[in-house]
């Protein structure tokens, strides 16, 4: 028997939640925008009315205001978005325990086992839509299909508060005439490359030989071919199942551009302390570090390198990050934002291959020092002890919302 998968997407999530919280905003052009003072002054989400005026997610607030002078900008309330996301999860869990979130506002649900009990897939979708309207004051678009890729596509094609079904019988008629870019996982670059080979629609992609696609695009080529032919067998994660952590990172946009390595060091050290804390909480250690540096022309560059030791240490992570930065960044422009990510993670109890030349005594001392600092912070607060250089101006924003975003697709 075929699986029954739905993909549900909360329409204009952040903006709709703001309108639900404040009924006076309903029917008006509303956008949720980041703080201009903290240089996050971009549109994060917009209402349907703002969309009609041409306001786009990701554009800067002044540009959006030019298009729509009456646009009401609301600061984000992430704690509310988390609350609504959790309540949405409660609605889905009435029908299944196989719920896989993608961000705060989208989920896949495998409702195969609930069809008989609830009177059919369409009925479940309608009940979910009604529950969202009555309980949360929000609308969802739902895609209904027999695999995750077509379910996701269905929710993209569905209108506000609608259900769009893609079945085995109708997928050729409904999906194949669409451009290849509509398939989940095919980005602009892959889309352009496919177009350059004359493959413009999903149908054309499906008609290609999978061997040829593999030759041109590698594993991704075969994956795309399977998606186009409705042969996606990826599972929907069970509720509560934890996705293995592959990386732990932290990044910020500075309050002003960083103009020298000393300023970059302070930011990297501060970010690394957060990364180190989270590594400890997850009982993981890093063997490599990745940095992402965005300059004031909004161009981002990423660099990766190994840490000298398998580490959780903020100092060692920060030093590796700075080393990467100094070796690779050309300083054509000043730096706007920095992200430090611990990668190639392993369990903190994993055996380690030692090297003859390593200064392990120093590493061990550093570890003891870090443990002590962490303990002090745990007992007396985050600001009980910190590096001297962070006492001066760091160009880091005072407060940053923490928003954990579950986004990975389970296979």
């Amino acid at each position, binding site marked *: 028997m075929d699986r029954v998968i739905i993909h549900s997407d909360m329409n204009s999530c952040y903006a709709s939640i703001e309108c*639900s*919280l404040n*009924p006076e905003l309903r029917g008006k052009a509303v956008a949720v925008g980041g703080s201009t003072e903290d240089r996050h002054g971009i549109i994060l989400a917009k209402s349907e009315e703002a969309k009609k005026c041409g306001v786009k997610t990701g554009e800067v607030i002044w540009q959006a205001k030019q298009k729509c002078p009456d646009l009401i900008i609301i600061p984000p309330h992430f704690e509310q978005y988390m609350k*609504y996301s959790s309540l949405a999860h409660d609605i889905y869990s009435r029908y299944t325990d196989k719920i896989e979130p993608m961000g705060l506002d989208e989920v896949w649900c495998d409702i195969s086992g609930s069809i008989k009990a609830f009177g059919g897939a369409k009925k479940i979708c309608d009940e979910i839509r009604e529950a969202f309207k009555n*309980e949360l*004051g929000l609308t969802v678009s739902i895609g209904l299909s027999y695999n995750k890729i077509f379910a996701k596509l269905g929710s993209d094609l569905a209108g506000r508060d609608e259900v769009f079904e893609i079945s085995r019988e109708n997928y050729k008629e409904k999906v194949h005439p669409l451009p290849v870019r509509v398939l989940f996982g095919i980005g602009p670059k892959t889309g352009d490359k496919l177009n350059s080979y004359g493959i413009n629609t999903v149908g054309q992609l499906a008609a290609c030989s999978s061997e040829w696609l593999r030759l041109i695009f590698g594993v991704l080529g075969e994956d795309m071919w399977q998606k186009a032919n409705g042969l996606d067998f990826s599972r929907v994660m069970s509720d509560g199942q934890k996705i293995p952590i592959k990386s732990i990172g932290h990044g910020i946009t500075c309050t002003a551009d960083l103009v020298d390595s000393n300023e970059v060091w302070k930011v990297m050290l501060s970010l690394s302390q957060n990364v180190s804390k989270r590594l400890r909480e997850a009982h993981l250690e890093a063997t490599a570090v990745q940095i992402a540096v965005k300059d004031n022309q909004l161009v981002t560059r990423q660099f990766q390198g190994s840490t000298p030791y398998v580490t959780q240490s903020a100092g060692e992570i920060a030093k590796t990050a700075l080393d990467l930065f100094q070796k690779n960044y050309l300083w054509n422009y000043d730096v706007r934002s920095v992200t430090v990510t611990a990668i190639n993670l392993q369990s903190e109890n994993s055996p380690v291959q030692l090297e003859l030349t390593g200064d392990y005594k120093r590493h061990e001392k550093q570890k003891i020092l870090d443990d002590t600092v962490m303990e002090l912070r745990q007992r007396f607060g985050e600001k009980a002890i910190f590096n001297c250089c962070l006492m001066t101006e760091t160009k880091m924003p005072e407060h940053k919302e923490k928003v954990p975003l579950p986004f990975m697709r389970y296979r």
Partner: protein
Amino acid sequence: MKNRKVYVKVLVQFDEEGNVLPMNITWEDGRKYEIDKVTDIRRACAFKVGGTAIRYTVRINGKITYLFEDEGRWFVESRS
């Protein structure tokens, strides 16, 4: 006339199962209203004043009205 969210003092009774039942409401000016009956309890959007909460449909002096509970705070939709 504008709808506004009025937070109120509520006397509640917990039963053996831990279920909550509102008994009376004290309005912001101090007037007290006894709840005759709770006819429905469900999560619902407070459409008039915004937000989502556990909605208690209650009968007070023969009149049906809504009482909302959100994270330990109780409110009603009022027109003023």
